[in-house]
């Protein structure tokens, strides 16, 4: 193994799992997550030298993995068909009753990326607002507003999805 491969392997051991875990949570498929891991990791290798603040790698990974997975979903309508109807919860109390897949599905119908991020990090990753602020730069007030917008848009989205 040459030196660049060794460096790549070290990075993989550091961040591979975080990338994979994030992709798996969004794509809900081990196979798709593995594909996404390869793409995001290659992106990491390409951009690693240009990432100035190496202590901000975790937010970078979250962002890169999340954006890539959103693109995958965008090009993969099949994703929507994978959702099983028995996982669908009720409209009220979105935080407790809706499964992660369902949240992603509904959140993805929201065109506003900030709302998507707030929803994803809150309900799927279960981060608190301070943590989300670290990752997205959204203030707690903005996060709360975006979550409220998400909840307000639920009935319309669910109607659109015929749930």
């Amino acid at each position: 193994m040459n030196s660049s491969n060794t460096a790549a392997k070290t990075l993989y051991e550091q961040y591979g799992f975080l990338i994979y875990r994030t992709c798996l949570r969004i794509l809900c498929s081990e196979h798709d997550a593995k594909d996404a891991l390869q793409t995001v990791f290659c992106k990491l290798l390409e951009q690693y030298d240009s990432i100035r603040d190496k202590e901000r790698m975790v937010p970078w990974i979250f962002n890169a993995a999340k954006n890539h997975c959103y693109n995958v979903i965008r090009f993969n309508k099949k994703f929507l068909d994978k959702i099983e109807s028995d996982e669908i919860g009720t409209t009220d109390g979105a935080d407790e009753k809706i499964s992660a897949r369902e949240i992603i599905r509904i959140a993805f119908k929201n065109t506003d990326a900030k709302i998507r991020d707030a929803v994803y990090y809150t309900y799927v990753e279960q981060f608190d607002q301070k943590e989300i602020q670290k990752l997205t730069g959204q203030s707690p007030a903005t996060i709360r507003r975006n979550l409220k917008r998400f909840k307000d848009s639920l009935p319309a989205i669910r109607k659109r999805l015929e749930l």
Partner: protein
Amino acid sequence: MTNGHVFDKIDLMEYVTNSCDDKKRTAIELHCRQCPQCARFCREYARENDGFLNALPFESTIAGLGTIQESTTVLRFRKHGRKPWLFALAASLILTVATFRVLQTSSPVVSNQIKGETGITVYVQNNAGHVEKRDNKVFFTHEKIQFLYTCAGYNNLILLGMDTSGTVTIYYPVMQDSSYTAESGAAIPLPNSILLDDYVGPELFLAVFSKARLKVSDIQNQCISHYKQTHDIASIKISGENTIFCPYLCTVHRKTQ
């Protein structure tokens, strides 16, 4: 975990991924000695990380991509992101697709790229910036080509290129080891266009559609072994159950001044 805790999950993730500085590392280690919740988070993460590295080790997950990566970067073609001209092309495509649909209902499609409802069509942006469909399959260096695919059911796609030196370039999927999942529909542009470089000569583009996921290395190896036997890119065939392969053989000439 953050209520009453000095460190939040992001901090702990930075710690377990070895991304934080020594000062923070020491502080987190001290904190974890007194905080079973944070200690458990770190332990769990480390355990899952080990499981991940056993299941998907670097050698089989990433290192194997080297050859593909190399071929996609060294190759005479360069992949480009979505370009403004693609949107102009999209507009012109609306007309083309409409015409295509009308033709489909009135007469059978006569094209060696379209088999049944599966296949590829190619548009090119010439050096003057105009988008056209080149029926004679002659292209010029530095022109941009845009592939459109049509498929229904055969949604796993690999698009590759092969030249007379036997070099195979994988265009789709991008740096992944299994096929690109294509959306069903007619005349859908692939996300990226391809910029022809200085290579002059015959070039085979090959789109392989399948009902099942395809391994890039399998298709690549089939092409290479076929070429080693025949030394003729025009005769390359891909075999496989529920697989349709659509060759597009073109010639690249030097750009005229």
